[in-house]
């Protein structure tokens, strides 16, 4: 799947779920600053499509991914990491599942 398609799907579903997504937003995770594909700054919820096509593999090397995941474990932010090449169906279901998980865990109103 093209990265642009993936981003469009994720943005549409996140916004259907009530999030206000802005694209290409710089966000700091510890000492690392990354530009996320989609980000709701108020709820600190977003998404990132890790594809080679957009150079994300270089921008998100393992230490940066670890920093983002550490922040999530501390409850500071919630970013859906698209770490494989999905079908559109899987991506839609994952986006809804991710928001559902946040709500189920009381992390999102």
């Amino acid at each position, binding site marked *: 799947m093209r990265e642009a398609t993936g981003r469009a799907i994720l943005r549409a579903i996140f916004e259907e779920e009530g999030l206000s997504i802005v694209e290409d937003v710089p966000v700091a995770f510890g000492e690392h600053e990354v530009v996320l594909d989609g980000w709701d700054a108020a709820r600190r919820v977003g998404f990132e499509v890790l594809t080679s096509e957009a150079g994300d593999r270089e921008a998100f090397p393992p230490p940066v991914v670890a920093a983002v*995941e550490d922040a*999530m474990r501390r409850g500071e932010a*919630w*970013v*859906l*990491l*698209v*770490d*494989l090449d*999905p079908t559109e169906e*899987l*991506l839609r*279901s*994952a986006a809804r*599942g*991710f928001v559902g*998980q946040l709500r189920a865990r009381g992390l999102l109103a």
Partner: protein
Amino acid sequence: VTSAGPAAYGVADFFRASAHQRTAIEEQLRRIDAERATHEKNREAVLAQATAARRDLAQSLLPGLVPRLVARARDLTGFAPWRTEDPVAAMDAERAAVERRLAAIAADPLFMNGELLFHPRTGTHTRELAELEGHLATQQRALSELMCHPRFTHLVDAGYGTERYAVPFWRLTYYDDWKAHDEIVEQFPGVTFPELARRYEEASAAEQTLRDEVARVNAIIARGQALFTEHAALTRRLGALSGEHLTAAQVRLLEHVLTSHGATMRAALGRDPAILGLYLRASALEAKVRYLDHVFVQDVGSQREVLQRQLQKILKDQAKYRRAKHAAARFPREAFERRFGDRSAAYERRWDRYRKRYLILWRWSAWDDVPDDDFVWWDVMTGARPDGDAIPEVAEFRRRHGRPSWIDGHRGARTRASEDDDDLAVAAAIAAEASGGSAGRDVAFDAS
């Protein structure tokens, strides 16, 4: 082309003369090929006689492998290795080793109970293997059913549905695994994934156990089969052992007898005139094959290459003089006539010489009529023809001994020498022709 021709020849003359010569050369090549076929046939016939003679000699020298006959052969031929080696003991030792191994195999329970254990339908291990393979197939079918989803083993390995599962919910993989899980449990209504994983692990362990069992029984069957194969081979060996040891001993003895110094061996074997006769026959027939080969190659075989070269040159020159720019070429008379002179007489002289030399050797069979002095078979067969010097063994013998003194008194040699008087004249003519004449070699030739 005649000696009274013009001062120079033209291209038309060249084509006429070269075509004539080409025909003559091609005819010679056909004759050579036909003669080669004849020689090969003759050679096979003499070789068969030589093989039979060797066999007869070997059988007379050593008719059996028993101490008395080995000692007799050793003393008669002076075969030194058998002063220290004992071929009979070597044979007995091998027989004993084979018999020991056969006894050990016969006492092995796998061999002893072979029918009971390995019968193709009723053998204990055969049936056990079939049963195990049946169970294995059942387990493999069960595993195949569980592994119907391509991500099943991945989920099992990742510990999906257990505390071991460590993929966080923010990774897409989490949802991919979830989807796979749903698809899998849909196929097994009422069964949880951890239960399926447990069944899979149990089936995998059972399959591995069955594989190990199948391998164990297969190893036993293979060992049993190896014993039967070895037993059969050793039984065959035991049956053939005496004959093979005897043949090997005869081969060694023959090698010694036929490569030893002739005069020495003749003197040694003279104590048994029957064996001496067989020795002379075998030795002479082997020499006859060598000499026939030599005469064919020297007189006929070697000419093929020369003629082929001449033919190629003719073809090349014919192509050259077909071109318009050479239409007016002129050929100096002397060079032209030297190249295209009639060679048929020279060819015939060479064939005559070959036939005479070859026939002397081919017809010769008086191996019982040899001189008392030392000799080389060429001299006996040909009456010491001088042209034998081209054969290394003859040249070496003559370098050491000079012209054989017995030749004038030897009946067969005298007869052949008288037959050869005109033949020697032919040989001289051919030698002269080879050094200065035109036949049989390329001639420098160019148009002016």
